């Protein structure tokens, strides 16, 4: 490379990069305020390098509208708090880079869940109800575990399988993307079926397939799933929801023909 070419390259590196002007259309509504009516509000800001929606929303809140409500905790796709509809698709705002979106961005709260205000929804309340309904905790074999003894060994392959399903952060994106859940609010959703599948493969859980049938063996459970698989496609953690639901369906149908 000649000196002139090197100089030109350096000049190009030093030149300020023109950033896009982003337009955010955000659904605003506060159900606690009787005077509030749902409306779309537009905000504009300049895009920055590596900007996520978390950064963008913080900037809007700090510089333009402190009344904007939304949820964030971990900012790293682990807590599951920032699930929202981004251009109609449920996903995590903290893991969404603005550079992957058009300059016009529409944000809305996740449907299905109780709305707290603007982009903030109460997924926890529903998740707790789901967990209680499905008994989504370990039903240990035998007596109370002796904490002074070593834990029973588990096949590493099985442990990996359990861990894979345990990666679910209960962000609610699968339920918000589910056509069945939109029509039938008692449907347990992929998050619930994944939870049951997780305990089914856990050798420490004493429950049989007949026991699992009691919690998901109906049209609000695994047989309500119509295999549209948006849950699988929108899951921000890329969980194998399609195969897990199919797995539970096969197991539960076998129970149906057993007697």
């Amino acid at each position, binding site marked *: 490379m000649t000196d002139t070419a090197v100089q030109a390259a350096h000049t190009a590196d030093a030149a300020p990069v023109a950033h896009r002007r982003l337009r955010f259309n955000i659904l605003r509504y506060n159900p606690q305020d009787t005077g509030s009516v749902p409306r779309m509000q537009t905000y504009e800001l300049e895009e920055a390098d590596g900007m996520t929606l978390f950064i963008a929303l913080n900037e809007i809140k700090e510089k333009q509208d402190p009344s904007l409500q939304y949820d964030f905790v971990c900012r790293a796709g682990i807590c599951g708090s920032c699930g929202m509809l981004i251009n109609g698709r449920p996903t995590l705002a903290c893991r969404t880079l603005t550079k992957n979106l058009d300059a016009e961005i529409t944000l809305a709260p996740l449907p299905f869940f109780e709305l707290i205000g603007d982009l903030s929804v109460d997924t926890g309340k529903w998740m707790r109800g789901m967990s209680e309904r499905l008994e989504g905790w370990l039903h240990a074999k035998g007596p109370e575990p002796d904490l002074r003894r070593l834990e029973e060994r588990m096949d590493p392959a099985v442990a990996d399988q359990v861990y894979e399903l345990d990666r679910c952060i209960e962000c609610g994106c699968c339920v918000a993307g589910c056509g069945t859940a939109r*029509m039938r609010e008692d449907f347990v959703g992929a998050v619930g079926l994944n939870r049951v599948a997780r305990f089914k493969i856990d050798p420490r859980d004493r429950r049989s397939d007949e026991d699992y049938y009691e919690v998901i063996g109906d049209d609000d459970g695994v047989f309500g799933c119509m295999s549209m698989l948006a849950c699988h496609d929108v899951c921000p953690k890329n969980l194998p929801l399609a195969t897990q639901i*199919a797995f539970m369906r096969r197991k539960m149908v076998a129970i149906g023909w057993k007697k």
Partner: protein
Amino acid sequence: MNTSTEVIAGVGLADQARKSLWPARLDWLQSASGLLLALFMWGHMFFVSSILISKDAMWTITKMFEGYFFFGTAHPWIVSVVVACVIVLFVGHAFLALRKFPINYTQYKLFRGHQKLLRHGDTTLWFWQVFTGFALFFLASVHLYLMLTRPHLIGPYESADRVWTENMWPLYILLLLAVEMHGGIGLYRLAVKWGWFAGSDANASRKNLKTLKWAITVFFLVLGFATLAAYIKIGIEHAPNYGQHYVPTWLQNAPGAVK
């Protein structure tokens, strides 16, 4: 007290203690009946399209199903028995599939809003599966009743007369579109619903299955429309002799030709 015989508002008390096994069975039966109908439609299309080979080929297949080559004489009632079995499957499948339809305007509105917002391929395909399924209630019923009651009027000229002179071609155009859409989507959904062909990479398999689904749909639509066009052409040519039965080439001058 025998609780299984105690009934309150049609629900046995025994059902309240344990979950009914019927949701599992109904789910399985819906899939099984759909699979059988889809496979039947593949066979049906190949048999009907024999007209593209020659009138004699179509006549031969028709007479084979009427037992002509087994008994020496044609017995169209055999076709009626097969049609009756298909009707039972068809009605049963429709009855089972109804469980999944939106059951009121609220559900319909919620689903359509969700579908348009999400713009997700398999969710949109589900809507078309329901739409074409609904259309088939009426379109397929007309055809099935005709085949049940007039099995002797199946043949190169007989079918062509029905298509053209009896004005069935508009119904057959719609029926063909509905069947091929519904069956193609249904088979794809069956595969993902039960986890068939998932292999070690379920996402890649699903992508391949969808490509295959479209290829099969296009293949049968092209074959179907070519077949329908052939019957329309024969029907137009044969219109002046409407009602005349086809006699195969090798029997046209033989004594005792099959009529």
